[in-house]
């Protein structure tokens, strides 16, 4: 008898417990920390579902980068959680909300248990796409992302840029064009600086590797880009580099490079392969890797800018 069912059950209990602790924890900061732990545990659940690509994304972005964002925000906001004049929710509200949430969860669980035995699947269509325009790619997820559902992936990059524009616009009028506040206000510990000096070159290499193998194995532009973004953030936290001013040209070019190249190649497909976002099969793999290179650049630029937040009021001397 295999031990896997027990691992599954143990993992499920652990994930639900840690998720509950993010909700019921008294301290704000403790809740944020358990959210990060929860994201990492969830990555294991994804691995058990035969989804290593999703697991990598969840660990890197869902837990890692979101964790940095929330911990930075939490540290800024923790002193303020005492100054809020918020009334605690009444017992009636708690009971009502608890019943409502339990009902929704039970309905969802019941729906999952009675799913039809003959599951609907887009896998055959995706397989056709993967052997057609996505030819030469061994990883079906990458084939779907860049070939079968390429328009979604392109629009998602535009969502990232829109989010960066939104975050920048939330700053005050006078701050426009300045650099965002430093990710870490206090002077970094020497250990932190050393860690960043050692880890950033290695992590950059691993990020590029994950992007490169993504054509044939789990990995890809999102996961690799997120790792490069993490390395940049680590360098900023150790004060090895400053967050750039938001009006410098190289930053803006890096942000739009991914979607712009994707769109141009997509339009070129109209003339070269007969339809929008179609690639000539003989050139599909080089074209897809070309698009992904610029997408990695855009992701690596956009994620740290989203974490760094709006531009700072005072210009950095």
């Amino acid at each position, binding site marked *: 008898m295999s031990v896997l069912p027990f691992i*599954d059950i143990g993992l*499920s209990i652990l*994930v639900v417990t840690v*998720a509950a602790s*993010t*909700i019921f924890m008294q301290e*704000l900061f403790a*809740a944020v920390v358990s*959210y990060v732990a*929860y994201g990492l545990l969830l990555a294991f659940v*994804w691995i*058990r*579902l*035969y*989804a290593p*690509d*999703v697991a990598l*994304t969840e660990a890197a*972005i869902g837990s890692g980068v*979101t964790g940095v*964002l*929330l911990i930075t*925000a939490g540290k*800024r*906001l923790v002193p303020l*959680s005492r*100054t809020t*004049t*918020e*009334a605690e*929710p009444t017992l009636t*509200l*708690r009971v009502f*909300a*608890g019943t409502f*949430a339990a009902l929704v*969860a039970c309905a*969802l669980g019941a729906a*999952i248990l009675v*799913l039809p035995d003959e*599951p609907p*699947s*887009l*896998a055959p*269509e995706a397989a056709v796409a993967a052997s057609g325009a996505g030819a030469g790619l061994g990883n*079906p*997820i990458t*084939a*779907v*992302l860049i070939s079968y*559902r390429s328009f979604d*992936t392109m629009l*998602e990059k535009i969502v*990232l840029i829109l*989010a960066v524009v*939104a975050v920048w616009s*939330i700053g*005050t009028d006078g701050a426009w064009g300045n650099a965002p506040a430093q990710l870490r206000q206090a002077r970094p510990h020497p250990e932190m600086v050393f860690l960043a000096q050692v880890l950033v070159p290695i992590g950059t290499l691993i990020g590029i590797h994950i992007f490169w193998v993504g054509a044939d194995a789990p990995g890809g532009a999102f996961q690799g880009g997120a790792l490069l973004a993490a390395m940049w953030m680590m360098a900023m936290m150790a004060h090895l580099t400053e967050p750039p001013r938001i009006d410098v040209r190289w930053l803006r070019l890096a942000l739009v490079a991914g979607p712009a190249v994707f769109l141009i190649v997509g339009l070129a497909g109209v003339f070269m392969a007969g339809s929008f976002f179609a690639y000539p099969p003989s050139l599909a793999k080089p074209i897809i890797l070309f698009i992904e290179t610029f997408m990695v650049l855009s992701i690596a630029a956009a994620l740290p800018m*989203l974490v760094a*937040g709006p531009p700072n009021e005072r210009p950095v001397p």
Partner: protein
Amino acid sequence: MTTAALAGLVGAALVGFGLYGLIVQPHPLRKLLAFNLIGSGVFLVFGIVARRGAAAGFPFDPVPQAMVITGIVVAFAASAVAVALIWRLYSETGHVTLDPDAWTEPSRERES
């Protein structure tokens, strides 16, 4: 019970906890945490659809998985905008609350 069904039930439980936190927790950052919990629960339910939809020689259906990857990135982008809004709300009003009555109180004591 299969791995997929178990993961689906975990997803359902996550949605339940997230929904409760979203309603009950007063702090906006905690509401954001709860909302992200609902989001990852929905992704997990979507993920078991990918697991069950194995066909055409794949051990899983790659289309929902690719959409979940897209979804995780978009959820992060939305969280970043939310954090920026919460921070601006604090620097404008001096309070971190969604209760409009608190905003009308002058926050000048903080500045003086």
